[in-house]
């Protein structure tokens, strides 16, 4: 099948998937060589796989709205590569979950011993993973043709619901959020994504709405909706319990001393 092989080598998705596979091997190998403790090695591997999964997921989500801002023709190659980026995100989420389960958590049967917050958080992360897995499994051209593009598109909008669950999973037990610079970076990333998504949705609706075709009305609506979304993002720490915030404050407040 020489023609098929040549087509594969001309496909940017092939290179992204190969890159992801090699990156996962390089990460685990480097960490194994760098870290003496087996337990710490598993913790770091799980954390870095999780971080890479988030980066892939974010890039996959942001490509489409960027196209509405700068013009789809300018990012046609990225739009083409988007499916492979999404599949890579699913792959790293799978690795993140497997390493966490077999490493720090100690196996599937151990999940019952986790505190309630962790159970909820891992449940949200698992549902997000299932959604991402469905996206990955239905990302082939043949499946798109079989389902019809319209149905496929509706199914793939579930990725936003999965994204919300992933944010809650990361917020509740995510490890790096204990550092303020990570919290600010996460807020900034979500703020940029929400702005672009609102812009995209409004652009779509402006085709049918005369009001939205007026530039001033469009700008006011965009900024108002974005402001609301920022309030929603900023209120996550107030509405959802975070494990690290709780015991980080305790680090500086050992008030209830028991023994000395």
């Amino acid at each position, binding site marked *: 099948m020489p023609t098929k092989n040549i087509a594969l080598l001309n496909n940017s998705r092939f290179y992204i998937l190969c890159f992801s596979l090699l990156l996962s091997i390089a990460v685990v190998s480097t960490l194994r060589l760098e870290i003496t403790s087996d337990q710490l090695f598993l913790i770091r591997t799980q954390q870095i796989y999780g971080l890479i999964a988030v980066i892939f997921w974010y890039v996959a989500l942001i490509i489409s709205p960027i196209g509405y801002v700068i013009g789809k023709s300018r990012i046609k190659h990225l739009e083409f590569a988007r499916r492979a980026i999404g599949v890579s995100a699913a792959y790293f989420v799978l690795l993140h979950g497997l390493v966490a389960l077999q490493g720090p958590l100690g196996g599937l049967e151990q999940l019952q011993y986790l505190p309630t917050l962790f159970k909820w958080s891992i449940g949200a992360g698992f549902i997000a993973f299932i959604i991402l897995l469905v996206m990955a499994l239905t990302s082939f051209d043949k499946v798109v043709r079989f389902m019809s593009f319209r149905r496929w598109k509706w199914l793939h909008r579930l990725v936003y619901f999965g994204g919300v669950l992933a944010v809650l999973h990361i917020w509740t037990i995510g490890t790096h959020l204990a550092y303020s610079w990570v919290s600010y970076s996460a807020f900034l990333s979500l703020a940029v994504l929400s702005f672009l998504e609102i812009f995209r949705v409004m652009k779509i609706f402006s085709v049918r709405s005369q009001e939205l075709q007026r530039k001033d009305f469009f700008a006011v609506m965009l900024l108002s909706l974005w402001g609301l979304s920022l309030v929603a993002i900023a209120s996550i720490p107030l509405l959802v319990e975070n494990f690290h915030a709780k015991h980080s404050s305790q680090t500086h407040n050992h*008030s209830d001393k028991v023994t000395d």
Partner: protein
Amino acid sequence: MSKLLFIALVMMSGLAFSRPALAHVLVTDANKQIGTVLHVYPDDDPIAGEASSLFFYVQSDDYKQPDYNPQLVIKNPDGSSSNIGISKDGSTISADYVFPTTGVYMINLYIDSGGKQTVFASQQRVSRASSEATLEAQSHSLAEFALVLSASAFLALIIVAFNRRQQIENFSRF
């Protein structure tokens, strides 16, 4: 292709600037009845000779009441044991400790509640030291092989992609 390279660079810089952080290690009691999530500051990787903090987040609702008595004993690599002063806040128990040297420590948390004692035992390896040599890294020939293999394959992938950049640009778009 330059855009793909940009994405790769962004991801690599994300990795480079990511600091080690805190994680969750699940420890179950000897009777497999209750679990606790243990965190060790800093970064689950304490430094010998410097202050560390230990956090236990106990699963059971029984420990949300204040009438339980926890006790933390750390067994040092030389066999001696230290009884550590602890704090509790609901079902979260915390303590500060300076691991004196590198080596493997046993962390034992005893909780007396309602006339019964629950024991959580966990091993903690301290491999970094502030003033002395760190524990020697073990040899992992498979990891070395995998790293060299992945780096070589990555290099080959870049060469192939660079040589076919025009075909990729023409093929890989809607």
